[in-house]
């Protein structure tokens, strides 16, 4: 029975009881409990099932290293799987359910895997299910996924909000134990800007639990004073519940703050991801205790020794009346002493070392605790709970010499410094033979731009394993970091911790050391992924020598705890099996995050309305009010069509086309790119950018131009207007404005830096409204204010003036083939101007039209569209745009590219029109088939569709596309390959002129 003790518990408030449920059962805990502590207080030792064998799993640890006690937390929009009970703060109303079992936690049918475990060795899945190949995806994987797994995926939209924040400091201290706090004091007192992160809600780390004495006071008092002093410093920021997740180049650190995990629904962001730029980083991240590998070490009730101490001291929770301690070091004796001092029984301390001396064992002996030196655990007794332990000689093979009844086992295999953050950016580790662990190599830290250390490990995280040593090391490291920062460190005393002399630990990787296969098959290394000593040894026998390969083959350390408990034990076992030294085998790579960071925090504020910036024209709101159906164009949303009630989108589009062709239509063209290019060299510059000549364009006139990249491929197009002697206005495509502006600046800043040209992107300064159709002029004349007649403002000219009282620039350009004016008006007047046009055109039948009508009308006219007719492999010549390419110019961007033999080949696919013989719409992207098959057994092709529509004007399908020798094949009937409902077929179409409508341009030139 685990239970709550009558007295004690330094972190709980017994006056504030909190109710929660586990698998629907109503339970009680106290304010200050972790969920794990509250579960243990209610004798809920069994909390889950393992991944592969569905073995019963209990709480092992008390911190982020916990591999077993993961639960589904919350419900609906606040449901979260895989939440670690040991780091989940209890709150009133918390709901938790256990994971990975069916039908119930107590009776799980998946446990049958456990009885066939010897048929499920390492690599079992790879070996068994590799053939036949297609079976993996369709048969094996779905079944395996059913039987294995952890929490359920959330189904509802996350009810919480998240955010990110940026912070800057000289020194970032990760870890709020005594080493971190002292380092922060040194830096803070010296005037450095300091941020201190502590992953839990409590400052001080282990020292107060272990009853350390610092400067003559209990460690808890020292911590309280240190935190108070730091909190009073304006240059120091303290952050609890904030986990240092990852260290990246140049002092960049990500940290996850659990703002409201413990107060769900209070309106605050659930998590906040801190993006910190630190001058130097000091990791005072402490250490994680290692399990011991003995048979049955995964049975609920077997826990880490220091975690048992945490539960007793911090939460007044007893894991059981009788706890046997199993250890290879002196530290675990603290647990025995704490248990006895709490009034509990420790039937024995089983110490693998033959000689047990030292202060702590002496104290244990004085308390009357039986110490069994040179002994180990042969086997843990019990199924879903520990009932006892059988003892053997550590030096032997596991013959039982004694059995001891007990309710819990506290094990300690030594401590591994938390080196994760030190290692993320390339810090190297050394193997410490005395403490049998990897610790940071101060000679090979992760380095900054200047070659200096970026991260300083301090205290226990740096292998200084006692409180006294940790404080001294923190002092040294903080001063080293300050010196590197160029900050003069204020002198001060190192806090002195009372020294408790500990005897050396002894590395124990397998208990007993000569254990046979039967025992080794029950020694768990990775609790969550069910990897045992026998699995790693099998991998070694099968030739897996690299620790990285062994990890992936056995899945050791690949669970959600990322091997915090299992990695060192696993690689030690591997090293033994390979007969190599541990440092030679090495560790797997440490990668961020240290513990899982929820995706919500990584997404931050970017969800819902602010998922992505949505660009709106000044007329956007009008479109919304008029039921526009939008389509994305870059980050803009443009009206695709304005359907009226009862209309399909296709019907609406056809109405818009016909109305524009017969009456007058209005298009919001504000998204069109507008770039001013000015200067004495502006003409020369534009002649280089465009394939045509822009320098000779007379003031007041417009000219269509094409831009290519250096390879010669068509990149953008648009109409250029000459504003004055040294000023041009370049229109770009809607999606191309920023790209083309950057392209211009790139050439001006990097290549032609001595040319006198300035550019300004004024795209958003103007709303641009296209008034299109035979009655367009009538509409403008009704607005009045300037002469828009054919004589005053001919096709391809522009003029400044006023219309309806608005200051406007009117361009006579057409993308539809109709009489058309594009009118630029300052954006602040855009909506008012649009509405004035609507009003003036009401009795002319004016209607707004969207991008689809625009596309159809331009296709009817055979006008190309960047992105439809072009795809980055098309040159202007392919589109019969030779007329827009100057033959006289010495050079322009793309000219030499276009002279390469492939681009200059007479066999290129060129633009033509297509009309299906049956009048139907040819599928978009369809290929024109050719005779024979290619090397892959596919039909040869000779062309493809680039644009295809039903033309409401011509009442039939029309298409544009590229065809080999196209323009020479007018009238020929070709075949398109089609696939309809999975059935391949062909469609015959005639090659025609791509200009389907008003070839002579009479309608636009009136």
């Amino acid at each position, binding site marked *: 029975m685990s239970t709550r003790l009558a007295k004690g518990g330094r972190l709980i408030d017994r006056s504030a009881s909190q109710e929660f449920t586990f698998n629907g059962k109503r339970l009680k805990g106290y304010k200050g409990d972790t969920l794990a502590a509250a579960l243990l207080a209610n004798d809920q030792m069994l909390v889950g099932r393992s991944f592969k064998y569905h073995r019963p799993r209990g709480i092992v640890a008390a911190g982020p290293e916990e591999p077993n006690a993961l639960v589904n937390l919350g419900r609906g929009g606040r449901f979260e799987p895989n939440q670690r009970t040991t780091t989940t703060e209890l709150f009133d109303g918390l709901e938790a359910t256990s994971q990975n079992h069916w039908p119930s936690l107590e009776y799980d049918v998946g446990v049958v895997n456990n009885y066939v475990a010897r048929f499920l060795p390492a690599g079992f899945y790879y070996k068994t299910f590799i053939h036949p190949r297609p079976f993996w995806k369709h048969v094996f994987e779905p079944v395996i996924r059913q039987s294995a797994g952890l929490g359920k995926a959330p189904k509802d939209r996350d009810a919480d909000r998240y*955010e990110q924040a940026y912070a800057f400091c000289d020194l970032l201290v990760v870890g709020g134990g005594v080493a971190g706090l002292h380092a922060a004091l040194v830096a803070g007192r010296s005037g450095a800007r300091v941020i201190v992160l502590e992953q839990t809600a409590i400052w001080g780390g282990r020292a107060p639990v272990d009853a350390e004495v610092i400067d003559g006071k209990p460690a808890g008092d020292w911590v309280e004073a240190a935190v108070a002093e730091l909190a009073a410093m304006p240059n120091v920021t303290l952050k609890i519940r904030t986990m240092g997740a990852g260290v990246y180049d140049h002092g960049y650190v990500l940290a996850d703050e659990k703002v409201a995990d413990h107060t769900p629904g209070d309106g605050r*962001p659930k998590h906040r991801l801190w993006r910190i730029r630190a001058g130097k980083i000091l990791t005072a991240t402490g250490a994680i205790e290692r399990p011991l590998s003995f048979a049955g070490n995964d049975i609920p009730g077997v826990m880490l020794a220091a975690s048992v101490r945490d539960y007793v001291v911090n939460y007044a929770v007893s894991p059981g009346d009788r706890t046997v301690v199993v250890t290879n070091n002196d530290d675990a004796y603290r647990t025995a002493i704490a248990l006895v001092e709490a009034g509990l029984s420790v039937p024995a301390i089983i110490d693998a070392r033959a000689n047990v001396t030292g202060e702590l064992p002496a104290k244990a002996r004085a308390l009357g605790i039986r110490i069994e030196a040179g002994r180990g655990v042969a086997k843990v007794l019990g199924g879903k709970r520990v009932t006892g332990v059988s003892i053997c000689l550590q030096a032997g093979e596991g013959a039982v010499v004694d059995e001891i009844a007990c309710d819990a086992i506290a094990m300690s295999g030594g401590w591994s410094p938390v080196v994760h953050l030190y290692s993320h950016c390339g810090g190297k580790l050394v193997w410490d033979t005395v403490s049998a662990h990897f610790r940071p190599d101060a000679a090979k830290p992760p380095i900054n731009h200047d070659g200096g250390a970026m991260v300083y490990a301090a205290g226990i995280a740096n292998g200084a394993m006692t409180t006294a040593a940790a404080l001294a090391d923190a002092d040294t490291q903080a001063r080293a970091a300050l010196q590197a920062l160029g900050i003069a460190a204020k002198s001060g005393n190192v806090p002195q911790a009372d020294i408790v002399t500990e005897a050396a630990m002894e590395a124990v990787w397998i208990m007993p050391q000569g254990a046979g296969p039967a025992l080794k098959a029950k020694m768990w290394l990775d609790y969550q992924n069910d990897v045992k000593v026998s699995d790693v040894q099998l991998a070694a026998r099968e030739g897996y020598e690299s620790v990285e390969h062994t990890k992936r083959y056995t899945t050791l350390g690949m669970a959600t705890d990322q091997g915090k408990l299992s990695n060192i034990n696993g690689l030690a076992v591997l090293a033994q099996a390979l007969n190599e030294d541990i440092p030679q085998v090495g560790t797997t790579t440490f990668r961020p995050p240290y513990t899982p960071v929820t995706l919500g925090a990584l997404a931050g504020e970017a969800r819902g309305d602010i998922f992505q*910036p949505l660009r709106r024209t000044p007329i956007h709101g009008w479109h919304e009010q008029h039921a526009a159906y939008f389509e994305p164009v870059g980050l803009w949303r443009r009206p695709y069509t304005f359907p009226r009630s009862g209309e399909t989108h296709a019907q609406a589009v056809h109405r818009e086309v016909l109305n524009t062709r017969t009456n007058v239509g209005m298009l919001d063209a504000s998204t069109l790119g507008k770039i001013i290019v000015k200067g004495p060299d502006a003409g020369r510059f534009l002649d280089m950018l465009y394939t045509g000549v822009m320098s000779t364009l007379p003031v007041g006139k417009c000219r269509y131009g094409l831009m290519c990249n250096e390879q010669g491929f068509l990149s953008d197009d648009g109409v250029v207007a000459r504003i004055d002697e040294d000023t041009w206005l370049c229109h770009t495509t809607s999606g191309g404005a920023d790209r083309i502006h950057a392209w211009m600046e790139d050439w001006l800043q990097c290549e032609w830096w001595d040319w006198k040209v300035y550019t300004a992107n004024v795209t958003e300064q103007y709303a641009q409204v296209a008034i299109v159709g035979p009655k367009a002029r009538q509409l403008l004349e009704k607005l009045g204010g300037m002469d828009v007649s054919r004589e005053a403002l001919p096709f391809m000219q522009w003029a400044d003036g006023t219309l309806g009282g608005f200051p406007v620039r009117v361009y006579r350009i057409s993308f539809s083939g109709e009489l058309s004016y594009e009118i630029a008006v*300052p954006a602040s007047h855009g909506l008012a101007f649009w509405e004035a046009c609507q009003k003036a055109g009401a009795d002319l039948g004016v209607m707004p039209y969207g991008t689809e009508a625009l596309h159809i009308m331009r296709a009817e006219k055979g006008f190309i569209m960047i992105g439809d007719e072009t795809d980055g492999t098309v040159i202007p010549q392919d589109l019969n745009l030779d007329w827009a390419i100057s033959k006289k110019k010495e050079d322009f961007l793309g000219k030499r590219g276009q002279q390469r033999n492939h681009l200059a080949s007479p066999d290129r696919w060129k633009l033509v029109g297509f009309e299906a013989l049956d009048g139907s719409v040819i599928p978009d992207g369809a290929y024109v088939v050719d005779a024979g098959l290619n090397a892959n057994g596919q039909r040869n092709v000779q062309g493809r569709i680039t644009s295809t529509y039903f033309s409401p004007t011509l009442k039939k399908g029309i298409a544009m596309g590229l065809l080999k020798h196209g323009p020479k094949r007018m009238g020929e009937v070709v075949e398109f390959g089609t696939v309809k409902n999975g059935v391949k077929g062909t469609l015959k179409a005639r090659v025609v002129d791509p200009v389907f409508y008003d070839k002579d341009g009479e309608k636009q030139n009136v």
Partner: protein
Amino acid sequence: MSEPVSALGGASFTGFANVREIGPLGMVTLRAKDVAGLADAVKAVTGTALPATRRIEVAGDCACAWMSPDEYLLVVPYAQAGAAIATLNAALKGQHFLAADVSDARAVFRVEGDKAAQALAKLSPVDFAALQPGELRRTRAAQVAAAFWQQGNGYTVVCFRSVGKYVFDLLSSSAMPGSELA
């Protein structure tokens, strides 16, 4: 002619910092470098000196900000933008420069209150403790370009007009009561 309308019509949000759209403001992009009479021309328009690198000079309703080694942003009352350009064109005539009216291309916000910097620190990678008075920071607000400077009891934030609503929504989300950073 209609009254000029700003991107959001003066929207506002009250949180731990207060957000409100201001404007329209007159804004002129001036591109010039090593041009004779530049400082005098700017002074004639804004009443300020030419700003040093990364700085903004403010005089009443007017300001001049350094945007790049050859670009300045001139801020004037909305109705004066045209006159400002005419002044610049006359003063710098014959030399190589570009003055463009961008008054309508921008959305401008004030983020005010003691904790205004905290709202911005959630969106922009800026060290506010190191941001000097009179310093203009060109940066980003989440996913879009933005610039701001400290003025009075808060900051003036400038972004492109088309993303005005996005930036307003960002600022409002950042300033949500209860989400203070300190």
